């Protein structure tokens, strides 16, 4: 097959530039295959992350021709003719070449109050398929962090990282909130300390999600509605008081985590 030109960002935290590589193309290849062949031949120290090569682990996120994507799920023959530009995710600090420092996401994961179910009955919990399906959608998340990468709240405002969980973690809060067994109330927490209010529903996150999770429609919007209910709905609040609250309050839940 004809040669292809790969235009790859090479550099580190001090800076870098796009470098062109010519290499032959092979039938059926994805971008990650070509990167691997470059490593084996022309650029042994070219850094990138990968594990599964099948869209299951979320390691190989990058921007291909400016579009945030998984390198292992982007077929070369589906990209327009001409050089293929591969650059690292923009929102995270560069470590080297295509590898960025995604530790922000692991820090945010630590701040999620743990799942807290009632003790299991003999023979295990019973849950209906319809009830688990809502959570299952969010649990498809492969933690590629592409949604975090495109969300303008952190992309354009570095300082928001301190108090903004981002779409990946909004779906995590939504999943727990909708879990048939969870007893922690996280609604005020996500509103007050995780920056839910900063999201203005641009849906950029949903558009890039390789797992096709409807992040905005199925997680963020319902979460916003519920958070508002928790805050303003005196009847619901009173109801909880009278019936004996089943869920821990936001403060109690937050106190469980750093």
């Amino acid at each position, binding site marked *: 097959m004809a040669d292809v030109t790969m235009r790859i960002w090479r550099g580190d935290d001090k800076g870098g530039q796009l470098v062109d590589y010519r290499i032959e193309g092979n039938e059926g290849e994805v971008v990650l295959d070509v990167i691997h062949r470059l490593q*084996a031949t022309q650029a*042994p*120290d070219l850094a990138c992350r990968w594990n599964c090569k099948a869209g299951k682990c979320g390691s190989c996120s990058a921007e291909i021709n400016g579009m945030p994507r998984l390198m292992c799920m982007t077929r070369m023959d589906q990209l327009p003719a001409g050089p293929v530009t591969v650059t690292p995710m923009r929102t995270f600090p560069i470590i*080297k070449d295509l590898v960025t420092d995604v530790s922000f996401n692991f820090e945010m994961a630590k701040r999620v109050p743990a799942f807290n179910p009632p003790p299991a009955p003999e023979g*295990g919990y019973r849950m209906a398929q319809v009830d*688990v399906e809502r959570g299952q959608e969010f*649990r498809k998340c*492969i933690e590629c962090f592409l949604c975090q990468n495109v969300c303008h709240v952190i992309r354009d405002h570095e300082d928001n990282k301190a108090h903004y969980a981002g779409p990946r973690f909004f779906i995590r809060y939504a999943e727990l909130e909708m879990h048939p067994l969870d007893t922690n109330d996280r609604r005020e927490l996500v509103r007050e300390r995780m920056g839910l209010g900063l999201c203005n529903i641009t849906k950029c996150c949903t558009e890039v999600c390789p797992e096709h999770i409807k992040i905005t429609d199925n997680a963020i919007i319902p979460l916003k509605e519920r958070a508002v209910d928790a805050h303003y709905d005196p009847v619901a609040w009173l109801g909880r008081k009278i019936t004996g609250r089943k869920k821990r309050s936001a403060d109690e839940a937050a106190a469980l985590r750093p």
Partner: protein
Amino acid sequence: MADYESHSYDVIIIGAGGAGLRAAIEAKGRGLNVALICKSLLGKAHTVMAEGGVAAAMGNVYSEDNWQVHFRDTMRGGKMLNNWRMAQLHAQESPDRVRELEGWGALFDRTKDGRILQRDVGGHRSARLAHVGDRTGLELIRTLQQKAVSMDIDVFMECKILKLLQDAEGRVSGAIGYWRPTGEFISFTAKAVVLASGGVGKSWKYTSNSWEGTGDGHAMAMWAGADLIDMECVQFHPTGMVWPLSVRGILVTEGVRGDGGVLRNSDGKRFMFDYVADMFRAETAESEEEADKWYDDHTAGRRPPELLPRDEVARSINSEVKAGRGSPHGGVFLDIASRRSAEFIRRRLPSMYHQFMELAGVDITATAMEVGPTCHYIMGGVRVDADTTATTVPGLFAAGEVAGGMHGSNRLGGNSLSDLLVFGRRAGMGAADYVEGRTGTPTIDHDELEAVVQESLKPFTRETGENPYDIQRDLQEMMQSNVGIIRTGSELEEALVELDKLVERADNVAVKGGRVYNPAWNLATDLPSMLTVSRSVTLGALNRKESRGGHTREDFPKPDPEFGKVNLVLSQPSGGGMHGEIKISPEPLLQMPDDLKVLFEETK
């Protein structure tokens, strides 16, 4: 002496797949100071890729299922080479381990009455695999990861351990490695070390394994004086993708067959009916009609032959292709399109649908897939005590794919994820008990540490030398053709000679650039374990002069009852790392007690 970042823990766990995470949760729960170390980011280990499910005799679909049947299936699947005690503990404890995950937030697919749904796969008599569509591994690793994070376990991500360190008495007392993002070295002292480093598949050309599967744990254990067993027992999964070439080897879950998919040759024939071994004849369907009834009601017919254990299916596919009845790209056809509705396929097998659509341009609801065997899993591994997971070296424990014995000569689908949970927990307990009984503060030998560091930096000091990628490629091609699915004595002899040459070349690796996230250097530091493990597998294969489970010898095509009584034990009595001589000797299997033996007599 140079100063390196150093840490001190009660227990360090090398590997953050299912086994490592489960071990960490257990040890931390015991109040110990625990570090979890992994080569990739947290949550990216092989475990995340597991598809079909986790095996546990919960009896949610067929209430007559119980641990004895699971135990029996596991032993028969492993052709009785298994450590019976591991197989027993595994069958007994896996239901609790799976249910426990629900208490930590996992959401499995449900039965109509709200319990965990279970699916069929090869070799299990009952529908036994708890699952979430075909992304069970993701559910499992994420659940454990979230639990571990909520317990404030210290995680060292993208940190590669190079070698275990021992004190003067030979107890394992720490480890030395480096951070991949910076290339800086880091050392640990620890009262106990748990190996949970996964498998070895990356030394073959066509494999379902990622770059991580280089057998570091197997090699480091042997370098430290531990025994390995039955390393010749490598599983070639019958169904990997075969086309496009660049995705060759990527796994197609056995769940496809469990959910009704069948294998056909170029004549459209369901050829598996021609390959039913005597051992399985009594329980396998004789006709397509009988087999097809079974999917809906296991009492209406016997099992379809597509669901024989993996070694049987992989060899059959190999024979069909050799006989000229393969698919255009050298595999066979896996057909679910003509047998199940598009809606059913998309719901039950969403990631397979996605994978074929995106990578091969094939719509599996309309067309058959092309599949062929791929190197998938190693049954052999570090010899451990079943109850505690202790290896033969004091202070060193092993669980998950790196440990040997549980699966004998062939593993059944779903039995790995359950193995991780059962023995991951037991490794945490075993290490904790050991730590509580251990006296003195662990010490490490700084000269040894310094020697490891200097050795690993040598590739930077060579002006010219071998490209590590070339060595890796040549190793993979050699192992694929000489130590692949069908083996023979002369090719194995040849492989040993080739391995000597590859070791020599590895001694001359040169790497350019800095230490910061340098994949060429990272690969150079993986080569010693890949070569050590490849030699172990080859030696095992040469010495086991029979065919059993995942190990097939063309020149010894039948199982030999005498070999069926022994493990092949590998060790390095005089050390030497990848250059060291490996000793191999048969040792009798553990003796199964009479009350378990009965389970096999009744059904003969």
